Structures are given as C-alpha cells and as structure tokens.
C-alpha cells in the first residue's frame, strides 16, 4: 500500500475494464478521432446551454463505459468525478442522472488522475467492486468562466492553450480483464509564483517535475521502467520546460518516451497555440488513445501525470500566483502486471 511518502502501490490489481470517450467537433478534426467512442458535430449537443452540453458529454461517456462492460449501473458503488465549472455542477448533474453514489472532486486538469487514483485505492482496499471515474470539459464553458465570451475578439498569446471539448470515463473494477492500475502518487501544490493564466503549461511544468521525481523515488524505480510517461496538458512550453528540468535533476527520460496529451489530441495547424488543456484532455487521450495502445500491446507500462492549475478567475484578479498540482497514476497491461 503506502510506499515512500506519497505513493500508493496497488497489490490487488484494480482493473480498468472499460472506458467511454466522447468528443466535440474540434476533436473530430484532430489527430486521434478513431480513439473516440462518440464524436459530436455540434458544440451545443442540441442542449440549451454549453453547461448542459458538457453535462451531456459526461453522461454519454459514463453510459458508453457501462455499456461496453455490460455492468449494470446498480452494480457500481461510486462515481468519482469532477470538472472545471463553478461548483462542478455539470458533474453533479450527471451524478443525479446516473444515480450512482457520488464523490465530487476538483483538481482542474489533474482531475482525471485524481479520480483514477482514488478509485483504484478504494477498489484495492475493498471499499468497492466497481467505480466509475472520469471527468469532462467544454471549450466554451471554460472560455466563458476563465477568459472571455467565446465570440470576443481578444488575441491569445502563443503560450495559451485550447480547452478540449469532451469527456473521458473509466470503469475501475476489482477483477476483470483490462489494463491494471498499479500505483499512484499524489502530488503537492507547487507554486513558482507564475501569475499569467495564459501560460499554464509553464506554470504546471514544475508540479509535473515534482510529482514525477517523487514517484520514481517512492517506488524506487527509474524512468526506463515505463514505455511512456504521459503528461496531462503541459503543451509545447510546459513539456520542454519539464523535460529539461527532469534531465537537470538527473532523471534520464528519452524524448520519445515523454509525451503530452495536450500535444497528442490535435493536428498540426489547428489553432490551439501551445497545445490542448482542460480536464477532458488527459482523460480522453489516456482512456482513448493510450489505453488502446496498451490493449494492442504497443506499450506495456505507462505513467499518467495529469497536471492542473488550480486558480480561479478571482484569484487571478487578486494577483495570486497559480497553484499547480500533478498526480501520477501508473497503468500497466493486464498480463504483465502479475
């Protein structure tokens, strides 16, 4: 169980038996459309508001995950999820719709890893048989809350990132076939005094480095243990900063071993500036793209390091620096995890 100071090692093999990945129109034009279960053509999903559209995304991803596993929702003990919007209402309304006992969490873009770590911990310790964990985000709701109205003609600097419209959900079970969650490292808030909300990658890189370092120290392994180290949504700048910083600290990570969800989801040429972000970013790319790779045997072990900047519009206006966090979860293919 607890190993080192902030890492859990799961000996009872909590397994991701199915996932549900939903995306919007912009993601459909990206580089991994085949890894989505549902892709929508309309930002509104025929709803009255963007917030309801986001709720719809989350609901669909839960339903897809349940359907693929042929587990009834009554068999699922908990739903652990969260999102970016004020008081995580899209997630709470989803919990109302699916009617599963619910734990709402908030870690901004690190929500995916946080919910997966908590789910794995509960399953591992016998607290539940099945847990749905996931997260969602919607470009327009995030823009509206954190930046400007979507139709406002403000110019974004090249350091800013594009919030993913989508939802990703994983059904974690005590037993079954699928990728296994082997360990999780819970991160600390790292605050390097960066106040620019249009440069989250640069701010979050420090948190990612901190958590990755701790993970290897706690588990007493080195980076070559993993085929892939997948960061959440650092974007171009954050990836470069964190990679250089990790090398400086003596961790040898190869360029091709260190990938970023925010740079995986979209194609070159889409106007996303430094890359993608949003809770759904790491969720859809991991539960879709990378778990598919894991199932196909292209990779055997991956470490998901989801990063989040936990600021609010208010804290930015009050000139507070951005508090950043990163949680790491290691996922390994089933056969290999014995």
């Amino acid at each position, binding site marked *: 169980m607890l190993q080192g100071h902030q890492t859990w090692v799961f000996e009872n093999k909590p397994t991701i038996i199915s996932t549900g990945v939903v995306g919007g129109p912009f993601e459909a034009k990206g580089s991994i459309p085949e890894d989505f279960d549902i892709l929508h053509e309309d930002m509104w999903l025929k709803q009255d508001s963007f917030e309801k559209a986001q709720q719809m995304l989350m609901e669909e991803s839960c339903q897809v995950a349940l359907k693929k596993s042929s587990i009834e929702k009554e068999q699922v003990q908990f739903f652990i999820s969260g999102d970016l919007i004020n008081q995580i209402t899209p997630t709470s309304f989803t919990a109302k719709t699916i009617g599963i006992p619910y734990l709402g969490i908030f870690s901004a873009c690190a929500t995916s890893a946080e919910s997966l770590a908590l789910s794995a911990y509960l399953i591992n310790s016998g607290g539940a048989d099945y847990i749905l964990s996931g997260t969602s985000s919607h470009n327009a709701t995030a823009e509206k809350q954190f930046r400007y109205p*979507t139709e406002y003609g403000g110019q974004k600097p090249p350091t800013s990132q594009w919030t993913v419209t989508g939802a990703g959900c994983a059904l974690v079970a005590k037993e079954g076939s699928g990728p296994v969650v082997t360990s999780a490292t819970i991160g600390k808030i790292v605050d390097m005094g960066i106040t620019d909300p249009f440069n989250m990658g640069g701010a979050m890189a420090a948190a990612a480095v901190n958590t990755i370092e701790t993970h290897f120290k706690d588990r007493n392994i080195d980076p070559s243990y993993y085929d892939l180290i997948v960061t959440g949504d650092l974007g171009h*700048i954050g990836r470069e900063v964190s990679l250089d910083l990790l090398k400086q600290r003596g961790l040898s990570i190869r360029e091709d071993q260190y990938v970023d969800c925010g740079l995986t989801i979209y194609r070159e040429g889409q106007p996303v500036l430094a890359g993608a972000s949003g809770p759904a970013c790491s969720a859809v790319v991991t539960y879709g793209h990378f778990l598919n790779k894991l199932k196909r045997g292209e990779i055997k072990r991956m470490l998901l390091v989801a990063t989040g900047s936990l600021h609010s519009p208010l804290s930015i206006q009050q000139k507070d620096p951005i508090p950043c966090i990163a949680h790491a979860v290691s996922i390994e293919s089933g056969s290999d995890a014995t």
Partner: protein
Amino acid sequence: MADKKKKKLPPEAQNYQAFQQDREVKRPVLLNCLKAFLVGGFICFIGQLISTFYVYYFNFTEQTAGNPTTATLIFITMLLTGFGIYDRIGQFAGAGSAVPVTGFGNAVISSAIEYKTEGFILGVGSNMLKLAGPVIVYGVFSAFVIALIKTLLIKWGVI
C-alpha cells in the same frame, strides 16, 4: 513593478521562472504590430468610406456624420460577432480589431450573446457591459477630471 514582486519570491521560484522564461514562446511583437496596423487601418478606412457616404448622400456634415458612422460600424460588428467571425479577426489582428470602436461593440455584443443562456435580464442585461464597462467608467471619470480642471482654469483666467 514585476521585478519588485519577483524579489519577494524564494530563490527556487526565481530560478524556475527564469528557466521557464527561456523556453516560453515569445510573442511576435513586430508581426503583431504590423497586423494590428493593417487591420486597424483598414477598419478606419472603412469608417472613412461610410462617413463620406453619409456626407454625400445624407444630410450630415463632416462633424455630424461621426455618430451614424459609429452606429453603422457597430451594426456590422454585430453581424460579424453573431456569425462567429469577429473572434477570428481578433486572434489575427489583436489590437487592430480591439482598439477601433468595432472592438468596443464586439466586447458588448459578444457578452450579450454569451450570457443569453442565463436569461435576458440577469444574463444579457447584467453582463453586457462586463468587458466594456471599464472603458465607460474610466472614460467618463477621466473626462470629468479633465473638463473640471479645464473649466476651472478658464474661469480663473489661466487659459
């Protein structure tokens, strides 16, 4: 100002910020200025066209044509904002489309459209001037101060 704030930070954070800044993508200032110049200039050129049109074909003088010109430009802005074009122009042009009165119109109209889902009174009504508010507030306040000083100076015979 930023330097002062930086000095209070622990050295670790200062080092990190320097480290991060080396890798940050710099804003292409010159290119942005050129784009702003071209698009901003073009909008003003259109404004001059509209204004000339009003002078020639309607009963407006050069001075009084200003108001209908502004209104026409804002009307065009409404269409561009509503069809989702103005935000793209904005990403390209930066200040070129933000500084002309069309940018003011876009700030008001985009907020109005955005908060439609919260209802017309509390959504549209309350949030419409969210972005444009500071311009009105400080425009009026500074104009008040300046006009007050000027009036007093004239009164005292200084100017």
